[in-house]
């Protein structure tokens, strides 16, 4: 192969490569911009967590300080609020995801009487304005003389998270290859083992997505929580309440911290996994 021929052969190839490269990266660049857009306000929140305002309002940048981070719980009530919120969000997302998954399995896998109705029932809580959702639940609790507090908040959160879980997991189950479950049963796995060893790993992305969604809905809910919280205060309640005087920078600290901790934990997890799989080879 002469040099000329080689060069001639390579020219269009380089062009094609460049084109493919650009296109490949168009999506990457777009995604980067998307995350920038998504995370931009978080960056602002983060910046203002280091602000040292002279008054009680944290609206404009004044001076840098570490104080807010060092004394992150120097605002009475903020610590118990965030702890309560995290507890509720964790429990609610897990329970709602489990319940939602079961409903999704029933809806996708089986034809049964009442399937259409069930489907509609799933959409109803989504379409109910939060305020009446919260208020009417109050009526129920009052009728049964339930003491308002942790449990009523949890019940409410699970209630409105279920629909999100069902819809998300259903989106995955619809494309699921049933032959794999048949194969598992054929190999002696009962329903539960089949679910654990085959179904669950394959719908894991949906479970994870559902957990994330439910967590974020729960941890950010204000209206429904407000009505059913008794005199417990969750983090959003604290933040919305503090709006009258102006939220202290500690609120930014906590917001940033949840974000950073969640991301950090995930990052470490991924790196460990990579290490482990590399080590195994």
């Amino acid at each position, binding site marked *: 192969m002469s040099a000329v021929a080689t060069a001639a052969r390579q020219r269009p190839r380089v062009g094609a490569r460049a084109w493919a490269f650009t296109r490949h990266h168009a999506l990457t660049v777009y995604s980067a911009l998307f995350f920038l857009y998504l995370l931009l306000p978080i960056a602002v929140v983060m910046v203002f967590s280091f602000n040292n*305002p*002279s*008054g*009680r*309002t944290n*609206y*404009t940048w*004044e001076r840098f300080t570490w104080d807010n981070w060092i*004394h992150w*719980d*120097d*605002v*009475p*009530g903020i*610590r118990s609020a965030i702890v309560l919120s995290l507890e509720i969000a964790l429990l609610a997302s897990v329970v709602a995801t489990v319940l939602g998954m079961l409903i999704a399995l029933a809806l996708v896998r089986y034809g049964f009487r009442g399937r259409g109705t069930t489907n509609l029932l799933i959409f109803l809580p989504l379409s109910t304005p939060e*305020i009446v959702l919260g*208020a009417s639940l*109050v*009526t129920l609790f*009052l009728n049964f003389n339930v003491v*308002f507090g942790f449990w009523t908040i949890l019940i409410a959160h699970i209630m409105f998270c279920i629909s999100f879980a069902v819809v998300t997991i259903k989106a995955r189950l619809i494309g699921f290859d049933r032959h794999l479950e048949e194969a598992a049963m054929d190999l002696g796995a009962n329903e539960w083992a089949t679910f654990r060893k085959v179904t669950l790993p394959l719908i894991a992305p949906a479970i994870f997505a559902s957990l994330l969604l439910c967590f974020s809905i729960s941890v950010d809910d204000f209206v429904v929580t*407000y*009505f059913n*919280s*008794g*005199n*417990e*205060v969750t983090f959003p*309640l*604290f933040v*919305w*309440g*503090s*709006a*009258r*005087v*102006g939220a*202290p920078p500690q609120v930014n600290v906590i917001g940033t911290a949840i974000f950073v901790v969640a991301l950090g934990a995930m990052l470490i997890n991924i790196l460990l996994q990579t290490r482990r799989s590399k080590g195994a080879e």
Partner: protein
Amino acid sequence: GGGGSDASEGTTSVERKLAKTLRMSNWTLYIDVKGKRHPTLEQFEKKTGVHVKYTEDIDGNASFFGKIQPQLQRGQSVDRDIIVMTDNSRYPSLLIDKGWVEKLDKSAIPNMKNLIAQQRHPAWDEDRDYSLPWQSGITGIGYNAKLTDPVKSIDDLLTDPKLKGKVGVLDDYSGTLTLVMLANGDDPGKVTDASFDRAIKKLQKASDSGQIRRFYGNSYKEDFAKGDLAATIAWSGDVAQLQFSNKNLQWDVPTEGGEIWTDNMFIPKGGNVYTASTFMNFVYDPKVAAQIEAYIQYICPVDGAKAAMLKLDPSLSKNRLIFPTKQMLDNVTSLDAKAFNNEKYLTTWNNLISA
């Protein structure tokens, strides 16, 4: 209004014995703070042995009322001894009319004598049988001196073309209406259909023309601080805080007059009257009042607090947004209590702000 239920009958002031715990609900960050603690509450505990379960779960009059209303309606206890609600809303009078709050045990509140004169006889609770002020504020006009000449009147605010789109108006029924009515030369203390309509029309015009940026809740502060609002109807206490960061932010009572509002302590049905009254008495001690005031910096309803403040923080005692001058206090009024519960007015108002 309906009478109280059986459940609350037994817990009236008959028993003059302190409970173990006092349950108080208040607005967020609305009491003095030092580190992670509330000195006033600790002092009270030390003095009386009553533990205060203090919850900051009130974020709005309407929403808090909506939250406790179902229980009160059923005659159930709301598990609170003191709640704090603002008198420029319909809720204080509703609470009283419906019999959802207990009478104060005035004998346990000798310090009630320190209540400033202007606050002694509100229309909705003539003799302060059910309520006692916690803090007050004045609704006036705030402006950003860097962006505009001083805005002294509501008419300027709502019509000056230089301010177009940079004017904030509060979605607060009482505050905004009072100011506009005063500007119209009407008496807010005696609202008539005609004066109400005039006020609404004026606001509607300003809203339609784009003069008003939007009707704000608490969030006006942020836009004001950042300069998105050149002038706005504003609360004195807020501007007092904003000034620390931005000296250009000014506030004044409009020339035609401003509105005063007060957050009042109530004892909801089923609350422990004696313990609650004892607490009220405690915070009406001028020294305690000054200590609270030094932190929250609204307008203190306690006579003698200014004197006490002089010792605590002289600069604050001079701040007329915290200790308003007599002239300011003479120039403020409040809205006709009857207007608060007028469904027609409220509907009209809401149609204006949630267009």
